[in-house]
Each structure stands twice: as structure tokens, then as C-alpha cells.
């Protein structure tokens, strides 16, 4: 890693999701040297885990592929996977950054042949599918992974399984002695594009996520609907694999709530509306009920809401559901709450419930000793008085993919200005 030559003319982009990739590409294509860091073993971030974008319902892989192609073609971008920032110091035009690289145990000789996975017997929870299934401990994160290179789970290093994987590899690509490494970078500007985490639904204890098996979250639904998901794209009940007849969406599960995320993430309403399409496509007779406080489908996205409302099988009920109780025998879920339009008490049974959880930022605060402004929730505030470090995409505010890309482009310009100003 010592061959990473950086100066105070370089731009550091932290986070290799759609925002980070966009920022890196826009800055590099304008003629600046960029280092891109990604924590996961692959680029693409949360977008790779989505089934379809709203409102066009097109697959995210297509836009990502174009970006990966641009990335490969651009010598000004150096990118690192399994890389995290351990510390940032300095000021605009002169930052020192400490980078930590976790061991992948697979080097660049890997061809993606998959012989190691065949040899490996140990299995681990699949993080790509939010733990809904298992994968071999020697794995390709997902079928479309970029870079197309396997990863070994640290749990098998030093075991028989690790040795089996090494022996199975014909290309000498497995290096069980790999250690965590670190190196230092210089940068003139930093774009923080670390994205978001789904809010932990288990914290909303009255919904029983984790205990009630058929209560899932919106991000899990994306994986379930996806061809490369745990069920091969078929949406079924997690408890028994049965087809669904009656499903509920609960909006604002832990959002707009001072006990959880006090803000509105702005995307979960349309994301749930989109997911009603996944269900209605697979199940022509399935009843869908959306429980909401307000449906926030803003601007042109309101057309999408109007389109979903025309579907007779999709009902909208204005209610913040208060309790979910599981029927032990059937795994069905009883939802209770107040219909705030009619004042009636609701008690209704569903096969499956999807919690629309919001976006929590991956904050910069814990690693940054340089001056940077964040709002009270940990999103970067892009305060003009504290130039040099900029947020992009969901690290700056919760938003959708299209807005993240716009925001990333503007962050690239800001970063370039930070360097040009000197």
C-alpha cells in the first residue's frame, strides 16, 4: 500500500457507494487525483442490495455497471476495498488521513473461479442478505461484485477450512497470513460519502422485530424480491416459506419519533409504495395494507402514489400501529392501533409485516479531529465556514439514489474548489 502517492492536490472520497463513486468519477474526469475508500469487500454500497429503483422500477445494476466501467477506465482513481478511515487531522488544503485495511485473505490473483467456496464447509450469516441466509465462509459477496474477487471470513483463518480453501486454489490467490495494514494519505479535500444504515428495528420494541419471525424490514424486502436474494426473488413468509395472502406495511417504524430517529427519512414512503408493486406482481390476489402517519411522496413522486392508489388490492389506513402480537400456532401477526381518520380501533391479522425503517447516518465524528460541522443527528452539515470536508448523498441527509447522485456531483465541485482556492 506504500505505493499510494498522494499530495495536498488529491481528493479523498470515503465510501464507495453510489454517492462516493459518483464524486470520485466526476472529480477524476475533471482532472483531479482521487483516492476512494470502501469498507465492504465490494463497491456499490446499498444500491447493490436494492431490487428496483422507484419510480421507474428499473434495476440498479445497470447504472452501477456504467459507473464501474468509467472507474476502470480512469487512471486518476485509486480505490481500496475493506478500507476504513482511522483518523483525519489537518485543515482545508492539507489533511492527513490514516487508513486501515482489513485482511481479505485473498490477493489480486483471484479469478473468481469459486474453487475455494466449493472446498469450504463452514458457513456464516450472509451480510449481503441481512443474515436471512447462510453462505460459505469463502465467498463472493454477491454475483455482480466489483472487484470480482472472493473473501475469506476471518473465522476460518487458522482452521482446517482455511487450509482446504488454500489447497483448492490453483492460482495461489489465498494468503492466510494477511494482516490488518494501515497507511497514511494526504488530501486537499475530503468527501464523506459513507451513506447510511437501516435504523435498528429491534429498538422499536412494540413491533417485536427479531422475535416475531414474519416481521421484516424494508431493506430485507428488497433482498427477498431480488433474483440474487435468499429466496431467489420469491417473496415468502420467513417462518414457513408459505406464499402470502395478506401483508401490511408499517410506515415511520422508528422515524419521526423522538425516542428513535426524530427526523423523516423522506424515502421510506415511496420505497414501501414501490414494494407494494413487487408483491402485487408476484401475487395477483394478495391484499396489501399500508399503515401510515402521512404518505410523503413529494413532487413528481406523487404520480407514483396516485398510480398505487388505483390498485384496488392496496389499502391505505392512517394509523401509527401500536402493537404487533404473533399468533404462536400460525405465525400470523395481529396488528392493533387507532384509525385516526375514523377514530375506530383497529385489530387486523396479517401473514407478514414489513417495517419501513429510516436511515441513520454513518457519522464522521468518531474519526475526525479536523474541523467539520455535523447536525444534531450526525449528518454532515456542509457549513460554508468549515470548508474542506463535505458530505455527499446520505451522509449529508437521508435521500434517494437520484438525489444522492446530484449531491455527489455538487460535492465533487466543492472538493475541486477547495483545492483550486489555494
Amino acid at each position: 500500500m506504500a505505493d499510494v502517492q498522494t499530495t495536498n492536490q488529491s481528493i479523498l472520497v470515503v465510501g464507495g457507494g453510489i454517492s462516493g463513486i459518483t464524486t470520485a468519477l466526476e472529480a477524476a474526469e475533471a482532472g483531479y487525483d482521487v483516492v476512494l475508500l470502501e469498507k465492504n469487500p465490494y463497491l456499490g454500497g446499498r444500491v447493490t442490495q436494492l431490487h428496483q429503483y422507484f419510480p421507474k422500477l428499473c434495476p440498479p445494476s445497470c447504472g452501477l455497471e456504467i459507473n464501474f466501467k468509467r472507474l476502470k477506465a480512469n487512471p486518476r482513481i485509486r480505490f481500496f476495498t475493506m478500507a476504513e478511515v482511522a483518523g483525519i487531522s489537518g485543515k482545508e488544503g492539507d489533511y492527513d488521513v490514516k487508513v486501515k485495511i482489513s485482511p481479505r485473505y485473498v490477493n489480486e490473483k483471484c479469478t473468481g473461479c469459486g474453487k475455494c467456496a466449493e472446498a469450504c464447509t463452514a458457513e456464516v450469516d450472509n451480510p449481503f442478505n441481512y443474515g436471512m441466509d447462510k453462505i460459505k465462509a469463502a465467498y463472493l459477496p454477491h454475483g455482480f461484485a466489483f472487484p470480482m474477487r472472493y473473501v475469506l471470513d476471518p473465522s476460518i483463518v487458522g482452521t482446517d477450512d482455511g487450509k482446504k480453501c488454500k489447497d483448492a486454489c490453483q492460482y495461489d490467490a489465498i494468503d492466510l497470513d494477511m494482516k490488518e495494514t494501515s497507511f497514511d494519505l494526504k488530501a486537499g479535500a475530503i468527501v464523506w460519502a459513507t451513506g447510511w444504515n437501516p435504523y435498528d428495528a429491534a429498538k422499536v420494541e412494540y413491533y417485536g422485530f427479531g422475535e416475531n419471525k414474519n416481521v421484516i424490514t424494508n431493506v430485507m424486502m428488497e433482498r427477498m424480491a431480488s433474483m440474487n436474494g435468499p429466496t431467489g426473488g420469491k417473496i415468502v413468509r420467513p417462518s414457513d416459506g408459505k406464499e402470502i395472502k395478506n401483508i401490511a406495511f408499517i410506515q415511520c417504524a422508528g422515524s419521526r419519533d423522538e425516542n428513535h430517529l426524530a427526523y423523516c427519512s423522506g424515502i421510506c414512503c415511496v420505497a414501501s409504495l414501490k414494494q407494494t408493486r413487487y408483491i402485487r406482481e408476484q401475487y395477483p390476489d394478495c391484499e396489501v395494507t399500508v399503515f401510515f402517519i402521512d404518505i410523503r411522496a413529494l413532487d413528481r413522486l406523487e404520480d407514483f402514489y396516485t398510480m398505487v392508489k388505483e390498485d384496488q388490492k392496496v389499502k391505505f389506513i392512517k394509523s401509527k400501529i401500536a402493537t404487533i402480537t404473533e399468533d404462536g400456532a400460525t405465525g400470523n401477526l395481529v396488528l392493533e392501533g387507532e384509525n385516526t381518520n375514523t377514530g375506530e380501533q383497529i385489530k387486523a391479522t396479517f401473514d407478514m409485516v414489513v417495517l419501513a425503517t429510516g436511515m441513520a447516518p454513518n457519522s464522521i465524528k468518531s474519526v475526525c479531529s479536523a474541523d467539520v460541522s455535523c447536525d444534531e443527528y450526525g449528518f454532515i452539515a456542509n457549513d460554508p465556514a468549515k470548508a474542506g470536508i463535505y458530505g455527499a448523498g446520505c451522509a449529508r441527509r437521508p435521500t434517494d439514489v437520484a438525489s444522492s447522485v446530484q449531491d455527489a456531483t455538487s460535492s465533487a465541485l466543492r472538493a475541486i474548489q477547495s483545492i483550486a482556492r489555494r
Partner: protein
Amino acid sequence: MAGNYDPSFAKEVFDNVDSGEEIKMCMQCGICAGSCPLRHEMDYPPRQIFTLIRAGRRDEVMNSKAIKLCTSCYRCKVRCPRGIPVIDVMHGLAHYGIKKGIIPRKGTAAFGGEFWKMIYNIGRIDEKTLPLKYNLLEGLVPGIKSTIEMAPMGIQMFLHHRMKLLPERKIKGIKELRKMLDKAKEMGKGGAN
């Protein structure tokens, strides 16, 4: 009902009811109504009470059963996404009603009175005498009848060591407790009536 809209009642509540101003934060999500264990007994759940206040429907609010039914289980207060202390508001409204001479559920108010008196006298609740006193408020014959109806529960409580045969004794430090209760009353927060 646009013609009946009257902001003066909301103002009255904000100014006079304990925690009354917190109502301003309500966004009408209804989780209080869905969480309340007594929701099926209430004429208006908390969310609707708050709306009625904003709409100036004084009579409906002050005469509602709901504001007297709260058992202080705290579910609504814990879950309220806007941090409204819903139970404080409900109790505040009940107190305000009593001050104004509106006692929609005489039984509840009387029970509260007896409860308070007993706490003031001995510092704890005597599970035998409190229901008896409360029942006798209905009159001698119906009082005895209600008490006999409750006997099976009393026997169970006795068997589970939740009730003694002898009268309960005063707690230690009853004088200090009374000072606290007097002070609470002085602040307008104490005394069930």
C-alpha cells in the same frame, strides 16, 4: 363543525391545566390511542381528547370518561413520538375538571379521595378497608352486596399473602410523608380532589 371552532378553550387548557401546553406538540399519530390498555373503555382516546381541545369542544372534553380512566401505566408517555407526557395531561385535565366542579365519574373521584385519605393516615393502602369504604359510598345495602361479590378475590389475595387479616399499621416516618403530601397539595398537585 367549523362554526363551533373556539380557540379559547385550548388557551384555557394551556394556561390552567398541568402539562396542558404539551398538547401543542401532538401530531395526531394515534399511538397513544392504540397503546392504551383501557382504550375500549374510553369514550375518546387521548389523541381525540387533544383534537377536541384544539377544536374548542369544552363540554365533550371536561365531561369525558377518558380523562378519569387513566391508570398511569405510562405506555402512551413512553411511546409518544413527540415526547408528550400524555398521562400528565390526562390527570391534569381530570384535576382541572374537579376544580371546576365537573366530576363525570363520581365513583373514580370518590375512590381517589378515599385512597388519598388512607395514604395520608397510615402511609399505605389497606386492601380490606379501601374497597369496603369505597363500596359503602354507594349506600349500606348495595355496599355490602358489592363487598360480598368481591370476597373470592379477597380470599385469593389472603392466600397469596397480599392481604392481612389484621388492620394495616402506620408506616414509619408517617409525619415526613404527610409533610410531602401537604406540600404537593399546596402546589396544586396532590389530593385526589
